[in-house]
């Protein structure tokens, strides 16, 4: 339960922190940390407008997106705090729930018969397909490393005998990149872009409004918190006292958000056709990590 509460709290801050970092770095006064949530709350209280062409899918898909991301967050451990749902092979359910959310996003974007939304959908489907192996390769590496089959124990890297902070950092790096790709942030996609042709996530929700848009945004905040918690779990020793873990967890989350903010401030986005290369590079780094783990375990 603590894990879920921590994830929830994180999801309140991360998006705001990113925006705040960006505004400070660019020398603007900028909105407060809670501004993204305030926007969402406004959205939740607004009425709904659907496209004339759209049918039932537009009406239910956002809800499924939200529900599946929310359920997938039940399986995420937070530095030693056990998740609510944990069983052997839960990472498969986790990855496939995220995929279910993607499936629903894509078909919802086609429902309005738009000439733009399919563009984002096409990219989302392709990038999602390309990045999925990275997560699984990391997990395969961790399965060898820890001999466990559940997210709640797999990410207890610091408890292992051969642990070295370097593993934690590499895994954090890969998961960080997965976060950027899954959430369509710079350098894959720029959430602040104004041009439909270059959007990924934003273009898919062009015809989504009010409550539906609100819950889709909440789902994306959740996704940040989920991946952030995974990163925190790989870095923080699980056997520390409770208050230390919470403090360190908060520190890691803030650092994570600030780093994303910095990346978005100083890095430009890739040309669309360079993205695939970038995503494959991330996947290959995860394969490298896998090989390194094989070496540490003397499997060669």
């Amino acid at each position, binding site marked *: 339960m603590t894990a879920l509460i921590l994830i929830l709290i994180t999801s309140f801050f991360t998006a705001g922190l990113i925006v705040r970092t960006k505004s400070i770095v660019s020398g603007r006064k900028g909105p407060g940390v809670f501004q993204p949530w305030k926007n969402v709350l406004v959205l939740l209280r607004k009425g709904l407008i659907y496209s004339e062409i759209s049918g039932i899918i537009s009406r239910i898909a956002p809800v499924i997106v939200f529900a599946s991301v929310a359920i997938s967050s039940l399986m995420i451990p937070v530095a030693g705090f056990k998740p609510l749902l944990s069983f052997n092979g839960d990472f498969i359910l986790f990855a496939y729930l995220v995929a279910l959310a993607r499936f629903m996003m894509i078909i919802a974007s086609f429902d309005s*018969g738009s000439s733009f939304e399919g563009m984002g959908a096409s990219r989302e489907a392709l990038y999602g397909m390309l990045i999925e192996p990275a997560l699984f390769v990391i997990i395969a590496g961790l399965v060898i490393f820890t001999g466990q089959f559940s997210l709640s124990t797999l990410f207890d890297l610091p408890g292992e005998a051969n642990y070295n902070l370097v593993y934690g950092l590499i895994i954090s790096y890969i998961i960080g990149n997965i976060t950027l790709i899954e959430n369509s942030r710079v350098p894959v996609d720029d959430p602040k872009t104004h041009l439909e042709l270059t959007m990924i996530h934003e273009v898919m929700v062009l015809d989504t409004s009010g409550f539906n848009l609100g819950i889709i945004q909440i789902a994306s905040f959740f996704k940040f918190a989920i991946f952030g918690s995974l990163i925190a779990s790989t870095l923080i020793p699980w056997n520390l006292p409770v208050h230390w873990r919470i403090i360190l967890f908060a520190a890691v989350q803030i650092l994570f958000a600030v780093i994303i903010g910095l990346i978005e401030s100083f890095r430009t986005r890739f040309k669309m056709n360079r993205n695939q290369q970038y995503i494959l590079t991330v996947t290959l780094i995860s394969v490298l990590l896998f090989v390194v783990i094989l070496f540490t375990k003397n499997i060669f």
Partner: protein
Amino acid sequence: MIYLLIFLLVTAFLIMVIRQRSALYVTGLTILTVVVVSSVISIKCLISADTATGLLPAPFICDRLSAFFILIINFTVITGFLYSTGYLKPYLKNKPEKWIKLHYLALIWLHASMIMVPLLRNGFWFLIAWEIMTLASFILVIFEFDEKGTLKAGISYLIQMHVGMVFILLALILSSRGFNGVSFDNLDFYFRHNSNWPVFLLFFTGFGLKAGFFLLHTWLPDAHPAAPSHVSGIMSGVMIKLGIYGILRITTYLSADFAQIGAFVIIISAITGLFGVMMAILQHDVKKLLAYHSIENIGIIGLGIGLGIFGISSGNTFLSAAGFAGALLHTLNHSLFKSLLFYSAGSVINQVHTRDVEQMGGLMKFMPYTGWAFLIGSVAISGLPPLNGFISEFLIYSSLFNGIASPEFNKLIILFIAMLSLVLIGGLALLCFTKVFSVIFLGQNRTAYPHQPAEANKAMIFSQFLPVIPVVLIGFFPVLIIKPLLILTGSIFSLETTALSGSMFASMSYISIGAVSLLFLFVAVLIIRTYAVRKYNVKTGPTWGCGYTAVDSRQQYTATSFVQEYANLAQPVIKTGHSNINYSDDEIFAEKREFHTHSDDFVKSKLIFKPVEFVLNLFRRAAVFQTGRLQHYVLYLLLFLLLIFLLTFLKVI
């Protein structure tokens, strides 16, 4: 056996002489009789602990493996027959009556032969049943023989099946040396005293041609689009699974070389799965796309089988039991959602009279039930929770990760490849099914339909929703089936599954909890939304056109554009060709042109067309001897006799 054949012949005769309407009822009644009898026997067989030999007369032997397959076959044949009663209605007017009757007759024979195949161990009877199955399905495939390409696809299917049969025959004969008569039971002895490799490979080729493994798959993408939809559903749902049955049957007899055979099956299945889905994405013909997806799913089933064999080699019961269980469950699951998809695709084709998805769109409004059925099938086949495809993939993943946890390097490489391909297959299937569902059912129609599409008739909708029930049940409550499934797997492959059963049961109950809470959360958020927007009227407005107001339906995203980036990525493996548009010099205003893109199956062009071309050329050259003059033929005769004399004289023969 003989009585059964006589019974079938009598019904055949009956159907051909009576009127069309009663022929339908006779077919239904016969299928129902066969279904009831065989289901009762198989359920008895599943319940009784040992292989019940006494249940059936002589050549038939029923064990749990055959019982499992018979139950799958029965379910899909029932839904297929029900669907056909609706699907064939438009054909009743413009097809000759005897052709419809022949179609139903072939359906009965296909069903009966599919039931017989898993029950027979005796090689002679087995091959007869196998052959009846091929012929019956051939007749079913060429139902629309007056359409272009149908007959050709059918004949290609017929030829390839017979090539497969030669392999099975050869393997049976080889393994039965020194025995009185050929039978699968001889394999037990043969495999214990000989190298397992070659004969397994022969069987794998023979059965793999039916199942559609990589390099042996070329008949599938031709035969399925040619056949009527219920036939595609039955063939893809269950008939190709009999190839899987054959491979599983052989696997139960294996006694050595497990590591190599397992690695071989895993690698070939990984390629099969990836190739199937990669080709599927680029197809615009909806039934061809589904056919390639059958290849993909055969790959997934093969991965399970390969992992199972692999696990035996390292003595890892968890690995092999979960692998085999995953393969068996995926066989069942695929028969459900693939027949469902073929049926709903058939309903769509019946209304819009084309198989090209680019000419469809917006059908969810016209045919909501069919749309829902197709959506459920799409989610299930992409292996997403909370539907059944996820459960079988979960089992295969569990098996994989268990193997990865206790690694030896050589084996790890194989398992790693298997994992990567399974993950990629999942992602690619998602890409493919979001494409096909969205383009067919969502948005607006891209071209004018020949007539206003209407919802399919009741029989068709009913048979589309019949498989939905188990799809949803297995997906939400895998706890109910996991224990029987593992007991079944354990008894078929003589594995000890009690330890696995406990941990799997725990995982499956958590998956059930996850699925149910997903549903609850979904409903809860829907209710909250209704509450939150209660003050407003839900409004509709035009789709965002970026300020452009004259948006028309041709500007929607199409299937080709949706997979454009993927097609570029896949270019090294699958060449996408397109017809060029050249403008002539005196053409000031562009005239109307047609533009086609196509992605060819390189296996078909390299493995089938090229050799066939070569042989045909050879024959053409040999045709110089065929002069048509009697004198020349007499001369050939004389030369031949001389040759014989000479050879005898030299004591060569």
